[in-house]
C-alpha cells in the first residue's frame, strides 16, 4: 500500500518526539490512580462505611454526575472518585498527541519536509494512531496496576485501567478525524474539546437522571458518551467487557474515516475549506461592540443552541416523570428548599445553568484582556477606542450573552416540560424568569474577572477561574454536601440568587448582586484606563 510507504521511519520519528510527553502522561495517570485509590482505601475501613459512602454517592444526583457507584466495594468507590478525571486526562493526552503529530506538523511546515520524501499520504496518520493506541493500552494497564498495588482486587483494577485506556483510544480517533476536517491544529483541538465536553455532559445528564434500583440504571444519554461507556464497565461489580468494545469500535470507525479523508484532501488544508470572505466590511461593522460580535458570533450561537438543547433535554427528563429514590429526593429538597419534586428538579437545573452561564460570562470578560496581551487591541487603542470603552463593550457582551443563554435554557426547560399547551406557555414565563433571576449572581462572579483584567491583565485568568470554581463549589449545587458553615457558603453569589422556580423571585438579592457586579466592572474598567497597555514585547 503506497499510502503507508515510509511508515517505519515516520513511526520512529513520532516515538522519538512524543516519548517524553507520553511517559509523563502515563506517570501522571498511574500516580493519580494510585492516589485516588489510596484515599478511598484509607477512608473506607469497614464494610459498613463503604456501603454508607457508596449509597450516599449513588443517592446524590450531583455527586453521581461526576461518577456513579455500582455496588458497595472500596474499589467501586475509588472508581466513582477517579474514573472521570483519569479518563478525561487520557482523552486529552490522546487527542492532543494525534493532532500535534498530524495537523500541527502541517501548520508548522514540518510535515512538508517529511511528505516530500518517499512517505505515503497516510503514513503520518497511521504512525500517530499506532503510537497513541500503544500509549492508551500501556497507560491504562499501568493505571490499573497502580490501583491494584494499593490493595483493591487486581481484576477490577485492570478493568478500570482498560476503561481509561478505551476512552483515550476513542478520543485518539476523534482527534485524528478532527485533524483531517479542520484546517488548523487549533481548530482540530477545539473540535476534540467540544466532543469531550459533550461526552461529559451526556454522561453527567444520564447519570443524574438515572434510577437507583439494585444498582444505578443510568438514563439513555450515557450511551452517547465514551465516558459513559467507561463507567458502564462497572469494573468492581459485574466487570462488563462489552462497553470496552464500544470504545474500541468507535476508535476503529473514526480512524477508518480519518484514513479515507486523509487520502482525498489537499496537504495543509482541511475538508472544511478555507472560504473567501468579504472584500469590504459590512456596514454595521463600525466599532468595538460590533467587532466583538463579528469575531465571536459563531461561538455565541453555539452556546445558545447548546443551552437550549440542555434545557430541552432536562425538561423532557422532568416531563417523563421523576421517580426518585429517597436519597435523591432529599438532595433536591436540600438544594431547592421544596419537597415538591418537579419544581425542586427544575430549580436544581436552573442553578446548574447559572454555572454554565457564568463560564460563558467569564470567558467573554477575559477575552478583552487576551486581545490586549496578544497585541490585537494595540491598533484599536491607537485609533479612537478608549480602554474604558473596550472594557465596557466586553462587559455588555458578557451581560447580554449570559442573559441570552439563561433565557434559552429556561425556554428549553419549559417547552419540553410536558403537560397541556396552556401549561407550557405559562411555564415559559415562569422558567425563563427563574433562569434570568440567576443573571445578577452570574455577573457578580464575572465582575471579579473584569476587575482582574483591569488590574492584573497578565494574571487575570489565574484569578478569575479559581474564583469561579470556588463560587461554584460553595453554591447550592455542591455546597450542601460540603459540610462547611452556612456563612461561608453565603459568600458565593450563587447561594444568594433566588431558588426559583421553587421559591419566589424577590428583588433584594437581585439588586444587591447587580450592584456588586457593577462596582467590580466599573473598578476594573477604570483600572484598565489608568495603566500602561500590557502589550507583547
Amino acid at each position, binding site marked *: 500500500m503506497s499510502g503507508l510507504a515510509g511508515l517505519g521511519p515516520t513511526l520512529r520519528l513520532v516515538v522519538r518526539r512524543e516519548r517524553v510527553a507520553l511517559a509523563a502522561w502515563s506517570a501522571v495517570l498511574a500516580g493519580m490512580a494510585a492516589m485516588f485509590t489510596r484515599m478511598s482505601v484509607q477512608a473506607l475501613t469497614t464494610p459498613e462505611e463503604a456501603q454508607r459512602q457508596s449509597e450516599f454517592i449513588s443517592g446524590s444526583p450531583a455527586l453521581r454526575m461526576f461518577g456513579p457507584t455500582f455496588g458497595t466495594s472500596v474499589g467501586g468507590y475509588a472508581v466513582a472518585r477517579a474514573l472521570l478525571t483519569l479518563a478525561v486526562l487520557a482523552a486529552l493526552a490522546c487527542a492532543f498527541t494525534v493532532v500535534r503529530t498530524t495537523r500541527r506538523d502541517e501548520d508548522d511546515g514540518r510535515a512538508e519536509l517529511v511528505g516530500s520524501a518517499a512517505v505515503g499520504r497516510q503514513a503520518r496518520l497511521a504512525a500517530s494512531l499506532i503510537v497513541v493506541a500503544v500509549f492508551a493500552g500501556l497507560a491504562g494497564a499501568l493505571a490499573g496496576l497502580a490501583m491494584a498495588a494499593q490493595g483493591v482486587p487486581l481484576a477490577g483494577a485492570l478493568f478500570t485501567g482498560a476503561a481509561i485506556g478505551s476512552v483515550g483510544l476513542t478520543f485518539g480517533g476523534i482527534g485524528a478525524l478532527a485533524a483531517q476536517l479542520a484546517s*488548523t491544529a487549533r481548530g482540530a483541538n477545539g473540535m476534540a474539546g467540544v466532543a469531550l465536553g459533550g461526552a461529559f455532559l451526556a454522561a453527567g445528564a444520564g447519570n443524574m437522571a438515572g434510577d437507583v434500583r439494585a444498582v444505578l440504571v443510568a438514563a439513555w444519554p450515557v450511551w452517547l458518551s465514551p465516558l459513559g461507556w467507561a463507567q458502564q464497565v462497572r469494573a468492581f461489580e459485574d466487570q462488563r467487557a462489552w462497553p470496552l468494545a464500544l470504545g474500541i469500535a468507535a476508535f476503529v470507525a473514526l480512524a477508518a474515516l480519518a484514513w479515507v479523508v486523509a487520502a482525498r484532501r489537499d496537504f495543509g488544508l482541511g475538508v472544511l475549506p*478555507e*472560504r*473567501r*470572505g*468579504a*472584500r*469590504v*466590511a*459590512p456596514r454595521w*461593522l*463600525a*466599532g468595538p461592540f460590533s*467587532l466583538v460580535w*463579528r*469575531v465571536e458570533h*459563531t461561538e455565541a450561537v453555539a452556546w445558545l443552541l447548546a443551552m437550549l438543547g440542555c434545557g430541552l433535554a432536562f425538561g423532557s427528563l422532568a416531563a417523563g416523570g421523576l421517580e426518585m429514590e429517597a436519597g435523591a429526593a432529599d438532595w433536591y429538597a436540600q438544594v431547592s428548599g421544596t419537597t415538591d419534586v418537579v419544581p425542586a428538579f427544575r430549580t436544581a437545573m436552573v442553578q446548574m445553568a447559572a454555572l454554565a452561564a457564568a463560564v460563558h460570562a467569564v470567558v467573554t470578560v477575559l477575552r478583552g484582556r487576551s486581545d490586549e496581551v*496578544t*497585541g*490585537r487591541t*494595540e*491598533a*484599536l*487603542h*491607537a*485609533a*479612537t*477606542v*478608549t480602554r474604558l470603552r473596550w472594557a465596557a463593550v466586553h462587559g455588555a457582551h458578557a451581560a447580554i450573552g449570559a442573559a441570552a443563554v439563561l433565557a434559552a435554557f429556561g425556554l428549553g426547560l419549559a417547552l419540553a416540560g410536558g403537560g397541556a399547551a396552556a401549561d407550557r406557555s405559562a411555564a415559559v414565563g415562569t422558567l425563563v424568569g427563574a433562569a434570568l433571576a440567576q443573571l445578577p449572581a452570574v455577573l457578580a462572579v464575572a465582575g471579579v474577572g473584569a476587575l482582574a483584567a483591569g488590574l492584573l491583565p497578565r494574571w487575570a485568568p489565574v484569578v478569575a477561574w479559581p474564583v469561579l470554581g470556588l463560587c461554584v463549589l460553595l453554591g447550592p449545587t455542591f455546597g450542601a454536601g460540603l459540610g462547611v458553615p452556612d456563612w461561608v457558603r453565603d459568600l458565593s453569589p450563587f447561594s444568594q440568587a433566588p431558588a426559583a422556580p421553587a421559591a419566589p423571585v424577590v428583588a433584594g438579592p437581585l439588586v444587591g448582586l447587580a450592584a456588586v457586579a457593577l462596582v467590580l466592572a466599573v473598578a476594573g474598567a477604570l483600572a484598565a484606563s489608568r*495603566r*500602561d*497597555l500590557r*502589550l*507583547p514585547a
Partner: protein
Amino acid sequence: MDWAIEATGLGKRFGAVSALNGLDLRVRAGEVHGLLGPNGAGKTTTIRVLLGLLRADAGRSRLLGGDPWRDAVALHRRLAYVPGDVHLWPTLTGGEVIDLMGRLRGRTVTARRDELVERFALDPSKHCRTYSKGNRQKVALVAALAADVELYLLDEPSSGLDPLMAGVFVDVVRERRDAGSAVLLSSHVLAEVEALADRLTIVRSGRAVQTGTFDELRHLTRTRVEVRTERPLEDVATWPGVHGVSRDRDAVRFGVDAERLGGVLRQLTDHGVRSLTSAPPTLEEMFFSHYGEVAADAVPAGAR
C-alpha cells in the same frame, strides 16, 4: 516652527528595565523623520508613549499640539499607526480590518483604499489567519495609509515586505509627505530611511544620540579613504583623526574624522599620492559607527 511631535526627556521603566532614558525627539510638520536604532533601543516604546498606550514616567511630550495621554482620542483621529508586530483577528478578512480601522478613525478615503489594495497586491477577501507575515503587514499599511491624516506613525513598517512591495511603500510614503503629512518612520532598513527621511534621529539605550539631516550627521562621522602612495605610509595610524587602518598590498584604507580631513590630505600629499578614492559615510557606516563593536568607542563627543 510647527512641530508634529515634540518630546523632551522621555523616561520609561518596566520594572528593573529602563526602556527610555531621557529621550528627545522633534518631528516637524510635513517631514519624514527616520527613527533609527538597534533592537531594544526604545523605538517602539517611544511610539507607544506618543500614542498614549504607555504612560511616560518622566519628560514632556506634545503630539500635534495635544497631550498624548489626555487627548488620546481627539489626537488619534488626526493620525494613523502601523504597529511593529501586526496582530489581526483571525476570523476577519483583511478588507474588514481595513474598513473597521477606517471607520474608527473616520477619515478613510475609499478611493485611496481601493487604490492601495491594488498597488500592494493584497487580496482583501482572505481571512487574516491565512495571511503570511508580509500580507498582515500590508493590511496594516493599507489601513493606515488610506487614512487622510496629519501624522503617520510607522513602526518598522516594511519588515516582511518583498523588495517590490518595499518599493511601493517608499512611493506611497513620499506621496503622503508631498500631500503635507508628517511621517515618523522607525526602521532598521537603512536604505529605506536613506531614501525617505528628511531628518533622522538615532537612538541607543533609550536616548537620542544623534539627530539632524543626513548632511549634518555626515559631518560628525568619518570619511573612508583608500590611498596608494609613492613612499610607504608607515606611521599613518598615529596621525590625528585617522582610525581603523588596514593594508592590502600597496593600498592603505582608513577612516578620517570629518574635521581632520584637510590635515590628513596635506600629509598624504607629502608622501606622493598615486591614487586616492574617498567616500562620504553612508547611513550604514553612520549606523555602525554608533553601534558597531569596532567603533563603539568612537561616538563623537557631545553627540547628544
